[in-house]
């Protein structure tokens, strides 16, 4: 982890792999939280 740093860039944007992984994970976790069905009973038909 302390070795040569990896960066990616497009135009003026340069981002470290570390930061990119964190940001991608945030988006992924948020999407999963929204989309995954939440356990627990629904009101049943009366």
């Amino acid at each position, binding site marked *: *982890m*302390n*070795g040569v*740093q*990896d*960066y990616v860039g497009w135009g*003026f*944007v*340069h*981002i*470290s*792999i*570390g*930061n990119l*992984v*964190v*940001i991608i994970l945030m988006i992924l976790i948020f999407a999963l939280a*929204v*989309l995954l069905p*939440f356990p*627990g*009973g*629904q*009101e049943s*038909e*009366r």
Partner: protein
Amino acid sequence: MMSRKHAYYRGVRMAPYDLVKEFLVALGVVTLLVVILAAVLSSPDVRPLTLQSIATTDPQSYVQTALNELDGSSGISDYGPPYNNGTGAVQYIGPISIQQLIGVHIPVSTAQDFVLGPLAQVAPTNPSWKVALDRYNAAPARQQTAWTNAYNTALGKATESGPHLSVARCACGPVTTMMKAMLALGQRGAMDGLLLTNRQFYQTDYTRPLLFTADPDNNVVNARATSLHLLGSQWGVMNETGNYPGQAWLWLYSLFYQIPPYTTAWAANTDALAILSITVLSLVLLFLPWIPGLNRLPRYLGVHRLIWRDWYREEKQKAARTAKHNAEVEA
């Protein structure tokens, strides 16, 4: 007395919800996650630079910095508030410089604090250094400037090999000895201590050593920062040493250091204007609930349709049942 919350929830179906269990599970999961990450990936800890390492690695740069501090031409000498009344680093927002309005609160006199003071402290045990220092201090300012100018010229043509610096003879008076002394103190590790504790034994304020170490004239520090992608122009504000994640939440502030006009037309005031910009945007975020248009944005974006899909389905079913019941009653 019915609380505001109970009034708000009236008519809404309530369901059991175990907050304490949720909290304990969250605490357990986050703790486990952090333990695993720390055990597997460790954390960054690049050793700091010392004046000793700088003086040894690049003696010419170190001595140049020392000379500039002495003759008042260094980045810090002419910095401006809060250190002194220079103008080199004074920034404006429009016509106003808050920096200047607030003024000098951390007085730093580079010649005295970085050169003359430390030399005076060690002079008693170094007779030749004491002679040079006394001669310099006794001379009129014009003479001092003539000596430092001459040394500056000679230093520009100096050669270095490893820690050794060769400066040709010059009509530099005592400055030659003083700069040799500064280099010796630096390379022996004495400067690190002298700049920190020359006023008091107990010290936690690294203002002086840091200002000297990281004077803009100093190549060694900048070179290391560049190799670690920590420069402002490298999105350095949000980066960490090594491959570790940095401060991703500073992305928007870092952005201002990459784009025009902050880097072009406003380059003399980039910091002040970047701070102004991020302050304005933070205030927008803070007052979002009361900003017309913006406070309706989530409704139009529609992510809530996914978040609350179970509830919306339940409400639709309830509405359908009610409609069916009403139709049956009327029939």
